[in-house]
Structure formats: structure tokens, C-alpha cells
């Protein structure tokens, strides 16, 4: 497994350092001064052989993740360096460790749409993030099924701030095998693909 965390973490550190006009790329200095993190990544304790390849185009980062937990229909996948992504039926509901994480979301409408259980109308999607003071903020979207062909289903979601398009590729059994999903305002889109091992 590769860690996309390593790449994205450095990019984010650079942005923070620039803010105070510290020297760029000074992670060694930060560690020496005792200013780094006091929590190291714990290697993932995998519970299955499946793998998920994830790309963050806006960060130019890629990683392969393995499953570490299944609880109430949600699978948590983790990189070697401690970034985790949670999916419900292939729909992204949480990220941890990306710097501007999707803290939680309600996948019920999207999951129903992917199963063809909606009439083509709008359904709500609520997402929560942390603001700059680390307080929970809710963002509300109205979503509907868009176009799509060749096993792909598009979902168009509109909030007061943005319009995003999520795409899901389903296999014959209706499982999501590939997707392009919007994470949040700074991470933007995430591409996922199941990897067979």
C-alpha cells in the first residue's frame, strides 16, 4: 500500500507555514523544535483482503486502502499512514486525516437512488464539517439523479454554495465498483476504484 497521506500532508503543512512566513518545507525543523504532532499513525489492522485505490486529483495524491472496520453497514478503509475513509454501500460518508474532513453525512437518499428506489425527484443530503474553530457545521444539499450511461449513474447535488456531480459505476449486482465523489470544499473530488487481490 502507498500512502497518499504523505503527499497531501506535506502540501497542507506548506500552506500553514506560508501563513506565518515560516520557511517552506520545514517539517524537519518543526519536528526538532517539538512542534510536530504528538500522535503517530498506527499501522492499520486489516480485517479483509479487499483493497480500494483512491485518488485526490486536487492534491495530486493517490493511495491504496485496506478495510479496518465494518459496523452498521459502514466499512472503514485506512491508509498505511493513518488516513481513513468510511463508505456506506459505496457512498463516501466520512474522512479522517485529510485536514478538512467530511465529519459525517447521511447516505440514505443516495443509496436509495443507486438502488433505483426513488422516483427521480429530489432528496436531501446533509453533511457535517468542522469550521475553523473546530465546531460542527451542517451543509445541506438537494440531490437528484442525473444522466449516466454504461453502468454509470450521476448524482447532481446543489447547496447554497456549490453544485457538485457525483458519479457511480455499478456492477451487475448493483455494487459500486468505481466512483467519483465530492468530499468537501478544499479537498474537492475523490476517485475510488475497487482493486481485486
Amino acid at each position: 500500500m502507498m500512502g497518499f497521506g504523505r503527499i497531501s500532508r506535506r502540501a497542507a503543512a506548506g500552506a500553514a507555514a506560508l501563513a506565518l512566513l515560516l520557511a517552506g518545507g520545514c517539517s524537519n525543523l518543526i519536528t526538532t523544535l517539538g512542534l510536530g504532532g504528538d500522535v503517530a499513525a498506527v499501522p492499520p489492522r486489516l480485517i479483509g483482503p479487499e483493497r480500494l485505490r483512491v485518488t485526490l486529483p486536487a492534491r495530486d495524491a493517490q493511495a491504496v486502502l485496506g478495510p479496518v472496520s465494518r459496523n452498521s453497514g459502514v466499512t472503514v478503509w485506512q491508509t498505511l499512514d493513518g488516513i481513513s475513509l468510511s463508505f456506506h454501500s459505496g457512498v463516501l460518508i466520512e474522512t479522517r486525516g485529510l485536514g478538512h474532513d467530511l465529519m459525517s453525512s447521511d447516505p440514505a437518499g443516495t443509496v436509495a437512488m443507486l438502488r433505483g428506489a426513488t422516483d427521480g425527484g429530489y432528496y436531501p443530503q446533509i453533511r457535517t464539517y468542522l469550521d475553523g474553530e473546530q465546531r460542527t457545521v451542517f451543509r445541506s444539499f438537494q440531490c437528484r439523479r442525473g444522466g449516466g450511461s454504461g453502468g454509470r449513474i450521476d448524482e447532481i447535488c446543489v447547496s447554497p454554495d456549490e453544485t457538485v456531480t457525483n458519479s457511480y459505476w455499478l456492477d451487475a449486482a448493483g455494487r459500486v465498483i468505481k466512483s467519483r465523489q465530492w468530499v468537501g470544499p478544499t479537498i474537492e473530488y475523490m476517485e475510488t476504484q475497487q482493486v481485486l487481490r
Partner: protein
Amino acid sequence: MFISKLETRPPPGGGLGGTVRSASWFRGDAALFGGVEWQATDRLKLTAEYSSDAYPIESPSAFSRDSQLNLGASYKLRPGIDLSVRYLYGTEFGVQLTAALNPKEPANPSGREPAPPPVLARASAAALSWPASIGERDGFRARVTEALSEQGIRLHGLTLSGDSARVEIENTAYPLEAQAIGRTARVLSRLMPARIETFVIVPITGGMPVSQLAIRRSDMETLEHDLDGSWKSFARARISSPEGLTMPGPERYPRFDWRLKPYLAPSLFDPDNPVRADFGAELTAGFEPAPGWEIAGGIRKRLVGNLADATRRSDSVLPHVRSDFNLYDEQGDPVITHLIAARYFKPGRDVYGRVTVGYLEKMYGGISGELLWMPNGSPFALGIEANYVRQRDFDQLLGFRSYEVATGHVSAYWDIGNGFHAQLDAGRYLAGDWGATLTVDREFNNGWKIGAFATLTDVPYSTFGEGSFDKGLRISIPISWLTGEPNKTAYSTTIRSVLRDGGARVDVGGRLYERVRPLQEPALQDGWGKFWR
């Protein structure tokens, strides 16, 4: 002019500063001045100004004034960063780069710390495959200790009774205590025997139990991926004040810790050189022989710096309790920053106590005692502190000077709301003066603190000297805000235009209010957004 008494302004100069000179307002010669500003594009702003001030005192000694017209341009390079140029008085050219920081906009709002361990539901396949007794086999305590330690949390004590596990923790990493509690509960869900249904998590500081949070294990299992899991889990946690003592595990005490770090000590506003600094190495060590006991010390060795170059000597007519700082900088290298033995204790459920003996700070050694009454969830707290101290030698080694004084304060703390905190300290200060200090801080939930303080004592303005009374600003920037990494360190500084001897307090470490408050309500609720992070 319309009113003849406005025609002459009282002469400048005189006075000590620190007072409002309203007698000068609207007095003296008057003339027309003004300017125009043109927002040429979204990023470019042009300004022109006509100045009628002839600068009879400043021109030509400070600059020459050949023109009454000033021109400027400002360009927004990116949000918060502006580059501006100006042409002043026909002779002066200036360039300025401004970078603004907004405490509410860190680069990484949710932090970059590694993901927390997932909750392990008792009904899951992985949990069911465990042998029933896995929880209490040999090495159980060691595995809990290690799993918490991986998360930056120190296990202080662990007791199982009936269907509940009482876990005392010390948070060494997270600026918001709620995150340490959330990670502790996640770790416990992975390791506790299946019969355990309630996690009682007790945050500890200085060996004192501060809060007690009862969290149901089944709530952890069902709310982990809930849309509103943060609020739901807070609403279901029962938070109270713990009774009685801690129950430390056998491996917790004694504990020895040391650290070698660089330090930077700046000094501002000396008229001879407004920015001075020392840079060097600092070795600190701490020893905790038993719960509530802390023995700590630190030494510093300068590597480079120019603090010792300051030549201004104190002209204070008060005892030189602070104003000899230049002598301390000049004669001290290497120095013992502090060398203390402290005892923390809880004489009552909502009462916290501290006694500290030794070399308390750079300039004073002696004994300091403090009591704090602070109920969980109350916006008010009351404290009392008494110190008997003797001034340390300028070389900051083991010797003392002859000045001795008893000081002490009664302190009232008030969490006003909306991030504002007020503190009023009344009592006796280092120079033997009596008075009070009012401090108001704006605290951001991410750890930024910006505040102002002022001290008025029975020292007359004329005796105090320049500035008339002690006042200043203090600012604290958390390292985690800059890096996004979990780290409880903050860069804190106090900005005073001048440091004199009236209204000065002993700077003893480990004051109780700042230790206890983050572990109590309402700080826990304010940080609960990070419970699941």
C-alpha cells in the same frame, strides 16, 4: 477660529504617558486636509492625499517635506496578503507587505492527526471471534496502556467493576480534551470484555481527577457513523465532578521525563534597539514520585543573542522587583529557569489546591500556595493565592538577593460567553503595593487567545514612572493551529511598552485555573465537535 480658547494647544512633552491628554484635543492651528481613494480593480487600490501638516519639528531632521501631496497604491496579492507602495512628501518612498491572519481560518480546520481507531462493535464478527475471557487475560492492562499511548493518551488508572470500566487518563496531545475522551472510548470499545457496558472516563491533571464522563458503550457502537453523532453522543454522556481520590495503576508512578529543546527569548521596545532576542538550548526535566507530586527544573544556555547588550539601567524609585531585567539578561548565562517541588491536591469535590516551593521563576524563589473553587459547568470560579518570595541573584543560579516580600491575591474568574473571559485579581504585588488587575481575553475555540490587562495599585503615577501604571496585551497562538498536528504547545507572549516595578506579580508555573478549566464543562462541550475526530 470660532472659539478663541481653541487657538493654542498646550505644549507637548511632560507627563509619564499612560494618561489621556484630553486637554490637547481640538486645540491649536487648524487647516484643511483630505484624501481620495479609488478602487481601480478588485485588487488594485490607488490613494492620493493632501496633507496640510508642515511638520515643523520633524522636517528636516526626520525627513524633508517638499510636497504636500502623498500618493499610494495597494495591490491584493491574495486574500489576506497586500503589497503597497507609497510616495510621501515629495521625498520619501515606501514599500510594505502585509500578511493578515484570521484565527478562525486555519489551513486544516479538522486537523491532520491520524484517523482514530474504529469502534469495534461487540456484535461484529471480529469481536465474536475472540475468546470470552480475552479482556482479562495476562497483559490486559499493558495492552490498554499501549493502545492509549498510541493515541497520545497516558493511562493513569483502570478499574473494572460489574458492567463498568473506570479509566483515568492524562491527555498529552490534544488541545481539546473531548478528542482525547473520544479516542479513549474508541480504544476501550476494542479492548474491554463484552460484559462492560459503561465507560467512566476521568480526565486527570496533576494527579487530580477533574471531571467524570460516563459514556455507554452501545452509544459508541451505534453513533460512530451517525450524521448527528457528535451532538447525540454529547447529550448521552453524563458529566459530573468526581468524588474522592484517583486510583493510579501500579505502572504510572514514579515517572521521569526530560526534554532538550531550543528556546527563543525576544525583548521588544527598548528605545536603543526595539527588537532584541536570545536563542539557545533549554534542558527541562520532571519527576513525578507519587500522585499529585511534581518535581521539575530547567536550565538554559544561550548560543547567540543580544539581550545582554541592553545598557539601560532602571531609574525606578520603587524596589527594583522587575525593572532590573537587563541585569538578569546580562549576568545570567547559563541560568536555572526554575527548580521546584509542587504538590497538587483536592481538599473538596470542587476545590483544587497547589503548593509550590523552590526557584519559582527567573527572578524569584520561595513558596507559593493556591486554592481554587471551580464547580463543573459553572461560569464562575474563585481563587486565592499567597506567596512568600525572595529575589534571586542576577546570575540566576542558586543565590538570592536581600529583597523579600509577601504577596497574594484573591481572584475571580468569569466565563462571560461568546469566547470572552474576564479575570479580576486583587491583592498585594511584588513591590508591596496593593491594588487590582483586570484581564479580559477573547479565546477562540481552536486555542487562540488575545487579551488585554491593566493593573492599578496604590503606587502614584509619578512614583511608578514612565507609563504611569502597568498594562499590556497578551497573545497565545497554538502550534496546532499552524501545523494542524495535535500538540498542546502554544506560543504565548505578553506585550508591554515598558516593564516597571508597580503592579508586578510572581510568575509561578502550574496555576490551577488554566489546568482545570479545559477538563471541565463548558470547555468539554465546546470541543465536542472533535469527539469523533
